[in-house]
């Protein structure tokens, strides 16, 4: 489903910055991959390229067999809308919209009926355990709850892949565990999950870890002793 071949990303400047220096990998449907590495290793850049938010400078990146250069702006928007869900470190909720409206946001751009919008948004909120908060506003929620709203927004259109960029980075450990638990559940339900994190502990909740350093993959292997966020919660 996801295929990268010698992907490079160089930011131009007086001294050009090499963010990705030729990475290659394949990710199949249903995987749960953690991209880790120190800051500046290129993991976020890689995620943006994988999410069609950014273009590689060279090399080939394909999602479902298509590269960004083969797709028009409208087609890219459609793929981001239907096939991908994004969760950001800083939640990125619209402050003046209710929780329900925030979750509906991707549906607004997918041309479905308002009744269907409501139904799907409520289902998504149910999955993250926030059914009781639908008419609240983001500033009335805790950080963990806000991130759960963001996850509901990411899954509302039932995307095949969820990209999560440091989703627990701004949260306390308990809320972080909750978020990871939700992501693991989503993975169990069939969503492919790409998680960017710099914490080894969090990365070990994925099934596979791709480790980056200075824009190169230095390690790529299956997690042998996988952590389950659920267990952490019980403790």
């Amino acid at each position, binding site marked *: 489903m996801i295929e990268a071949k010698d992907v490079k990303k160089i930011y131009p400047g007086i001294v050009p910055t090499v963010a990705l220096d030729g990475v290659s990998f394949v990710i199949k449907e249903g995987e749960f991959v953690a991209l880790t590495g120190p800051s500046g290793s290129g993991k976020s850049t890689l995620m943006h390229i994988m999410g069609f*938010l950014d273009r590689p400078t060279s090399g080939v990146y394909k999602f479902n067999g298509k590269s960004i250069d083969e797709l028009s702006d409208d087609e890219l928007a459609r793929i*981001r809308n239907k096939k991908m869900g994004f969760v950001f470190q800083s939640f990125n909720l619209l402050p003046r919209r209710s929780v329900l409206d925030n979750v509906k946001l991707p549906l607004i*751009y997918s041309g479905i009926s308002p009744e269907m919008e409501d139904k799907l948004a409520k289902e998504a909120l149910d999955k993250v355990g926030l059914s009781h908060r639908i008419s609240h506003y983001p500033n009335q929620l805790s950080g963990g709850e806000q991130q759960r709203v963001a996850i509901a927004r990411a899954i509302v259109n039932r995307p095949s892949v969820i990209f999560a960029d440091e989703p627990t980075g701004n949260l306390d450990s308990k809320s972080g565990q909750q978020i990871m638990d939700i992501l693991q559940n989503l993975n169990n339900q069939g969503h492919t999950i790409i998680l960017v994190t710099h914490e080894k502990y969090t990365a070990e909740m994925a099934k596979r870890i791709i480790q980056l350093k200075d824009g190169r993959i230095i390690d790529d292997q299956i997690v042998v002793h996988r952590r389950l966020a659920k267990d952490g919660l019980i403790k």
Partner: protein
Amino acid sequence: MNIFYSFKTALIGLKTNKVRSFLTILGIIIGIAAVVAMMSLGAGAENLIVGQIMSMGSNNIFIEPGSFDPKKTSMMEAMMKEMEIKTLKISDAKAIKNLPEIEEAAPLVVGMDKVVYKDINKKITFLGTTPAAHVVEGTNIILGRDFTDAEVKSQARVAVLGYKITQDLFGDENPIGKTIRIKKTNFKVIGVLEERGSQTFMNLDEYIYVPITTAQKLLLGIDHIRWIIAKAKNENVVDEAVADIRLLLRDRHNIYNPQGDLTKDDFRVMSQVEATNTLSSVMEIFTLFLASIAAIALVVGGIGIMNIMLVSVTERTKEIGLRKAVGARRKDILYQFLLEALVLTFLGGVIGVILGVIGSFFGGMVFGKMLNTNWGFFISFKAIGLGLGVSTVVGLAFGIYPARKAAQLSPIEALRYE
């Protein structure tokens, strides 16, 4: 993306910064209000003046000294020159009256002075005419009688008063047979005219009519006349009559002008219809001129809209990035910001139209009071349409640039923006 959602988004965007939104559209409000008020007042004035002139009869023809001299540099100069032309005489009016197309022709002189009755003392305009003037103007005597041709011939000291000046001088007293004084000359009041209402810049009911010969000799000391008002027998012969009057006067004034070059004449002939059309077009140009000055406020308002929309795009860069990340297309973002600008300006347009209508209502009232006339409250629907149309166009024109800027943001740049 449905239109309802877009509107909701636009309104939330505007409500977030209520004061800022209001200040932004203030320019549009003022611009539209000014355009609407100017055009409504202009249309009202035009209606009033043209209506009054036409009410005097569409068969009328004016003859006055002067010429269509293109070299005249200013209106004042032209007027001064005309004052010096003394070639128009009572006999010209008599000759014009004898033309086959003409029903009646009245010579006129005019002056301003004080009229005195007992201890009352008023500034008035007096007109020296012949009985024909009332035929031409179509006014009726309601009390007493008009002066006769014989009285004109004998320079009789008799006067016919306008309705209002009669009331001012005599109140409930019967004015007939009473003596008034103008320029140390006694006049016997013999008649009162019906109420005619005031014309835009002059109150006809304050006029005093005396025989033209009396006015020339005793009040003004001249033997030429100021103008002639003639009345054609019917509308169809007005143009012929104008042509004939020109030939007749050239002949009488010894002007050799076989080509009919109007600049060589020492007089001007204009029909009522022509005069009305000229006045109408002058009024229209004047109105347009005022409206275009007001339109400058609109452009300034539009620049304000653009400025604030650019600020809004910058402020919401992250939101734009997020929307793009969850699947908004370029045109979704474009429409969102364009609609916001449109809602802003259209709102300004609506408020501006309302204020403009209120303004022209009160403006009309004030002008009506000032000119002592019944100013018809006139809403220029053309102006309202124009106001709303222009505000929408301004919204589009000045909203498109910020909206395009928003639409073209790359999602990742926008998301990274702090």
